């Protein structure tokens, strides 16, 4: 199994449940030692306290604060035209970037797992690069290439194409930062699947496309779906890169995360919180999807 270092272990779906049956059995029998039990409890408390302080309380707080004055102010904040624009713009960008990355991800996975060429390790590292780069740096790099003074700047201006400070640039930025997920999740599944079934399909007369569509894709579908969920979450929440590339023009190039910042800076706390809550709810939905899919992916890989 190739170990390209740290990037080989990331985003593995959370092990569901936690214990294997045999371990659960031993756990149930319990520790007979009083001191050991106290120790175990102590550790648990520390861990949970850490999580409570860092994670759970702040998130709970947001919901509380948002709704503490009732539903009405929240509703008006959410239905403000700029808020609506931001919301739909976010969705629009996601609707373009995610399918792009999905196709790219599956293609890359196929290339890396089924292709025969040199430089596979390099390609793998390249795909993982967005993980190591700060979103701000991504935005900067895009401006350097597609901006007015950038490499393609003149050509783009001549052809009337606006990339930076408009939606295409934002789509680009979003796509870059959420690039690796589908590929990363599909690769191990593709590896586990093995190419036997695909070869069998070939001997039975299936063309490349037929084999992919009827045999490979159904085999990797849960990995792909999981990757899509991760990609979507990342794309929806992207802030830094899009911030630089968008110019943050209200109502036009403001995604929902950018809108949150805008409201906050204009002291419209309610508005900021309301938008934040929308995003938080979407994040929680993503979490739910991730957890449900974890079981499926595990099952698929195991078979």
């Amino acid at each position: 199994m190739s170990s390209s270092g740290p990037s080989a272990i990331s985003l593995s779906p959370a092990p569901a449940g936690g214990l294997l049956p045999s371990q659960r059995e031993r756990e149930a029998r319990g520790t007979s030692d009083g001191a050991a039990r106290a120790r175990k409890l102590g550790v648990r408390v520390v861990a949970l306290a850490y999580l409570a302080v860092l994670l759970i309380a702040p998130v709970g707080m947001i919901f509380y604060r948002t709704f503490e004055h009732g539903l009405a102010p929240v509703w008006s904040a959410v239905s403000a035209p700029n808020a609506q624009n931001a919301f739909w713009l976010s969705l629009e960008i996601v609707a373009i970037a995610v399918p792009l990355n999905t196709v790219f991800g599956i293609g890359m996975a196929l290339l890396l797992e089924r292709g025969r060429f040199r430089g596979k390790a390099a390609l793998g590292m390249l795909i993982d690069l967005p993980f190591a780069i700060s979103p701000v740096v991504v935005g900067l790099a895009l401006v350097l290439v597609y901006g007015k003074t950038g490499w393609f700047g003149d050509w783009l201006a001549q052809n009337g194409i606006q990339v930076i400070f408009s939606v295409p640039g934002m789509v680009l930025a979003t796509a870059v930062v959420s690039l690796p997920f589908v590929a990363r999740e599909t690769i191990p599944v593709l590896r586990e699947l093995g190419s036997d079934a695909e070869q069998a399909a070939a001997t039975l007369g299936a063309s490349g496309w037929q084999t992919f569509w009827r045999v490979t894709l159904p085999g990797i579908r849960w990995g792909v779906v999981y990757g899509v969920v991760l990609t979507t979450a990342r794309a929806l929440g992207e802030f830094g890169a899009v911030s630089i590339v968008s110019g943050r023009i209200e109502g036009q190039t403001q995604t929902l995360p950018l809108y949150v910042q805008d409201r906050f800076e204009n002291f419209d706390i309610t508005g900021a919180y309301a938008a934040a809550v929308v995003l938080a709810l979407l994040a929680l939905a993503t979490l739910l999807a991730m957890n449900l899919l974890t079981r499926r992916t595990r099952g698929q890989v195991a078979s």
Partner: protein
Amino acid sequence: MAIEVHNVSKQFGTFTALDDVSIGVADGALTALLGPSGSGKSTLLRIIAGLEEPDAGDVTIGGDLVTGTPARSRGVGFVFQHYAPFKHMTVQSNVAFGLTVRKRPKAEIEARVKELLELVRLDGLAERYPSQLSGGQLQRMALARALAVQPKVLLLDEPFGALDAQVRGELREWLRRLHDEIHVTTIFVTHDQEEAMEVAEQIVVMNGGRIEQAGTPRELYESPRNEFVMSFIGPVNRLGNAYVRPHDIQILPEAGGNTIEALVQRIVHLGFEVRVELTLPDGREVWAQVTRASAQELELAEGQILAVRLPPPRVFAS
């Protein structure tokens, strides 16, 4: 359809899998490619199937040159060691696959699948998924799937390797009978010489990327061309560079013309066969194979000194 392989060579990096290999398989024959791991037998099979391309040489099927044509256009049926089922499809869809991608009419597909499932005795399991089948059932499904498109040639890569002993035995017999019924040119790869001897009409013995000998089971057993074939097929005693079959060692009730003395080290009863481990006067150890009846007649016991006659040993030119 007859298959001909002419001077095929294949390298994987620095490893030579096949070195100038040529064989011919008659139309309708049931042939085994037999050899240890690394002998190149699977590679040869895959080259015939079109799953690999040779570096040099040609393959013809039914008189047509197929080198260079991809697997899907060769009309070969291939069965994998681990069955390669389409896990997300039912047994029905699996078997129907080849016909489905050829866009045959639905009624035709259903009829054919039904016919095949009956042939391999999986009727009634059509709606099951591969995860619900046993190894033996999966392999039969794989066979049905391969046969569905009426291949010119049937190729099996260690088809029974992943199954346990009893199922293996059953499926071997079953394959033989299937072949008698269908008469498709069949080649299967195995490292199990007993399996090859039992099932195949013709055996091609391979080693290190080359062909050691090809012939009927009997020919290979009785007239092995070299040491490798002799020791690979059938039990053998090695005395220096001479080879002697255990059952050719005669144990006689009393000394006589050209017998020698031997000490019985150990007697192993293997049901019908009795294995007698002997030490010869010069210290060498051999083992003889006798029937239960003979063992009883001779009243063999450990520690006994017996009269033993060795056959003329076979020596091969190196």
